[in-house]
């Protein structure tokens, strides 16, 4: 899910950077004092999740958890994912500092979309599980599409790249969906405020 340094062209890098700065600004502005602890913990979860590998398929795929972050944090997922990706780049050499903006946008924007799509469905217990699964899987699917788009804008042939990236990420979509579903249903039982609360 991380794009390496030196693959993307300058306009894509700059565009991704600008979008990430805007998203992070809004995220920080909306992040209220009470939720900083949750954001930090979820950032840590995102930070380590990429070390959990799924040995399926041709590529090398791992947990991302961007769906979970998006559903719980809303706009705050932007600063959370930015910080986690920065530290992954520094400590694990995943991605890189120049592509940080693009990588953050690719994972945070789908997460945010899932927040708006899935959040309303979480209020009712009946749809909660399905919504959690859909949120987790959809976030990965859209992130894969974003990634394919950034690669295609620097290179050529969106469809071929997109097909490849989406197929490589199919197993992780399933796994993320299940993980997110269990996390959401559990959190809904334990801290219903967090899931059904209307605060963004």
């Amino acid at each position, binding site marked *: *899910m*991380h*794009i*390496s*340094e*030196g*693959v*993307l062209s300058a306009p894509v890098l700059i565009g991704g950077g600008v979008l990430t700065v805007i998203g992070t600004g809004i995220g*920080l502005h909306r*992040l*209220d*004092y*009470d939720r*900083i*602890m*949750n*954001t*930090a*913990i*979820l*950032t*840590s*979860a995102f*930070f*380590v*999740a*990429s*070390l*959990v*590998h799924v*040995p399926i398929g*041709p*590529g*090398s*795929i*791992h947990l991302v958890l961007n769906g979970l972050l998006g559903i719980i944090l809303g706009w705050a997922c932007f*600063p959370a994912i930015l*910080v*986690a990706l920065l*530290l*992954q780049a*520094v*400590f*694990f*050499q*995943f991605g890189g500092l120049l592509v940080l903006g693009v990588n953050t946008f690719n994972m945070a924007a789908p997460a945010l979309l899932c927040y708006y799509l899935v959040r309303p469905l979480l209020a009712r217990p009946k749809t909660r599980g399905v919504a959690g699964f859909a949120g987790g899987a959809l976030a990965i699917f859209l992130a894969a599409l974003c*990634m394919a788009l*950034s*690669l295609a804008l620097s290179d050529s042939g969106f469809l071929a790249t997109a097909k*490849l*990236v989406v197929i*490589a990420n199919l197993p992780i979509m399933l796994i993320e969906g299940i993980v997110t579903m269990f*996390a959401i249903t*559990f*959190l809904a039982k*334990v*801290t219903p*405020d*967090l899931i059904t609360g209307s605060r963004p």
Partner: protein
Amino acid sequence: MKQLSMFLSILLLCLVITTPGNAHKVNVFAYAESGTIIGETSFSGGRPAQNAEISVQDRATGAVLLQARSDGQGTFSFPIPDRARDERLDLLIIVHAGEGHRNEWLLTTEDYLPGEPDTAPGGQSAAATERQSAVAVELPPQQIALPPSWPEEQLQQIIETAVAKQVAPLKRLVLETRQSGPGLRDILGGIGYIVGIFGVIALIKSQKGGK
């Protein structure tokens, strides 16, 4: 809120404990052995990068000298390009493993043409002469009892083969060390930074809220 923190902390702990030390990054490593450049590429954690695109460039100009693909074990090999040998180019070996995974390995002239006997008679390059004299300093010829019947060329070949055999495990060791994924120290350090960064954000927010 407390329960949430506890749940997430436990989740985090599980992740840290179960992490097999894998990473999401493609590695490449190459060395020369008797006129062939051999390389390995893998995702750190050891999964070989199969069928990855390898391109060999001249470092100075960026001209592509060679294209290759890795096999099922993630290894690749190709003879040293004639042009690189003639012009003594530093080779930049770039691997594209798809999905935006890219890494490179620099193979300098010294790496792949070590002590190669200069084929041009009398026309030795300055660098080659220097290297040969350096060798001569380390091994004064009068201290080695050589059977006089052995031609120098053959001797050199024997030495090269023997040294290559001895060095091969070291090369593999270096490769494995380079490819070991992030350790516990990296993970805990990263989490420490996250706590610190959000601590700073909390501090700023609290000061703004207080006034």
